[in-house]
């Protein structure tokens, strides 16, 4: 169980998140959607504490952390982080390490696994994301879709309880995005718990059980993807979903 209760965050004068509650069941996929600046990325980054919420409570499995406006101790931060993996919009692979070394990094540096064992696990994950044949390459030689698949393998290596995906397909053209969606769908089918911020309706519709629509730091509406995308209760949701959907050539050329 992953639970966010009353999460609030402000950057200076700007209230980015305002008393947000989200519950995520183990093994389910939740998509955060909403306009740019709605706070969905910030909410995601509050789960692995790349941002520290000003108020609220975060529960990840057996760990609970309540925020009071001061920085939590690093030991508490690390206990939470060890249960999360993160996939970034711009991949953020380590350019000075090979594909294999990227996936091994968390195991070797943080979990202190021996090289051979880490290599074995990394290879298994690279096979899962279809990148085993590039294990010895530098990240700079890969396409965006390939880099993102390696980044997914890297995030999965320490066996996180939840995978956080921040716009995982936004930097990719449609065909490269499709290969990333396919990998994420495979993980969802295997029961990986995921929380993703996305503009990609195809990604959200394909694999999520729950869609949360954020606007101005508040949850406006949430529910099953079918409901949010086809039968939203609120006019704001309807308007936003329509703008995302009506961007295909058939609509543009109509």
């Amino acid at each position, binding site marked *: 169980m992953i639970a966010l209760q009353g999460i609030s965050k402000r950057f200076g004068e700007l209230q980015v998140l305002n008393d947000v509650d989200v519950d995520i069941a183990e093994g389910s996929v939740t998509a955060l959607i909403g306009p740019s600046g709605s706070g969905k990325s910030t909410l995601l980054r509050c789960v*692995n504490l*790349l941002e520290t919420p000003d108020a609220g409570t975060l529960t990840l499995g057996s760990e609970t952390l309540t925020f009071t406006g001061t920085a939590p101790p*690093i030991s508490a931060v690390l206990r939470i982080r060890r249960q999360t*993996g993160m996939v970034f919009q*711009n991949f953020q692979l*380590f350019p*000075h390490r090979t594909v294999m070394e990227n996936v091994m990094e*968390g195991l070797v540096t943080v979990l202190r696994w021996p090289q051979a064992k880490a290599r074995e696990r990394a290879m298994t994950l690279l096979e899962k994301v279809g990148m085993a044949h590039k294990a010895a390459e*530098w990240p700079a030689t890969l396409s965006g879709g390939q880099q993102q698949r390696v980044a997914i393998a890297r*995030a999965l290596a320490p066996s996180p309880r939840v995978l956080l995906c921040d716009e995982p397909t936004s930097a990719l053209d449609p065909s490269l995005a499709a290969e990333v969606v396919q990998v994420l769908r495979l993980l969802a089918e295997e029961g990986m718990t995921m929380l993703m911020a996305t503009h990609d309706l195809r990604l959200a519709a394909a694999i999520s059980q729950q869609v949360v629509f954020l606007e101005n730091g508040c949850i406006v509406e949430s529910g099953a993807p079918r409901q949010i995308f086809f039968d939203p209760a609120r006019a704001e949701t309807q308007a936003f979903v329509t703008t995302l959907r009506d961007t295909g050539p058939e609509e543009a050329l109509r």
Partner: protein
Amino acid sequence: MPETAALLPSWLQLMADSFWPLLHAGIRFTVPLTLISFGAGLMLAFVVALIRLFGPAPLVWVARFYIWLIRGTPLLVQLFVIFYGLPSVGIVLDPFPAALIGFTLNVGAYNAEVIRAAIESIPKGQWEAAYSLSMTRAQALRRTVLPQSARVAVPPLANSFISLVKDTSLAAVLTVPEIFQAAQRIAAVTYEPLVLYLEAAFIYLIFSTVLTTLQARLERRYGQHAVFAGTLR
């Protein structure tokens, strides 16, 4: 013209005679002075850069004051203060250690800024990627940021190293018998300043050339992961 014919051999003879004394002065004094002060200076620069980036406010001010002071005053004046000035307050140093201290402080101040800039040039996303794998700040710095910073820092650090080789000629004024001082001494007895100073310049050029080659090798080593498509023009 017989006069010219007579001049050339003596010119060459003088060069040949003084080459080994000059080279020896280089190997005996210039090289150790350069290597030790660069090594110690880099360690100092690294510590100062880390303090400027991550240290508590009072230490940050100390670091900034040090950089401001050293960069804002001439190296020659600093060397005079250390060697000729400090004895007035009871601190008497031999020429070589005095020069060493002066050069180390200089290397430290200039390269603290090089190292700080190199660390700051690594995108925030790389830190976040490391943190998202539950690395501590020290681990993120050591495993992710510093190896990438090294590649950025090699050209300016090599610049500073090559400058230092030549700046060590200032140690001549502290009576350290390095290349330039040796050339001065020979010129004083042979009355051939042009020949001797050109020869000293030539020896500095040899040292710099060797170092430039080493720099290229280091850049290749740290840049092996980078892929540049096409050419920049």
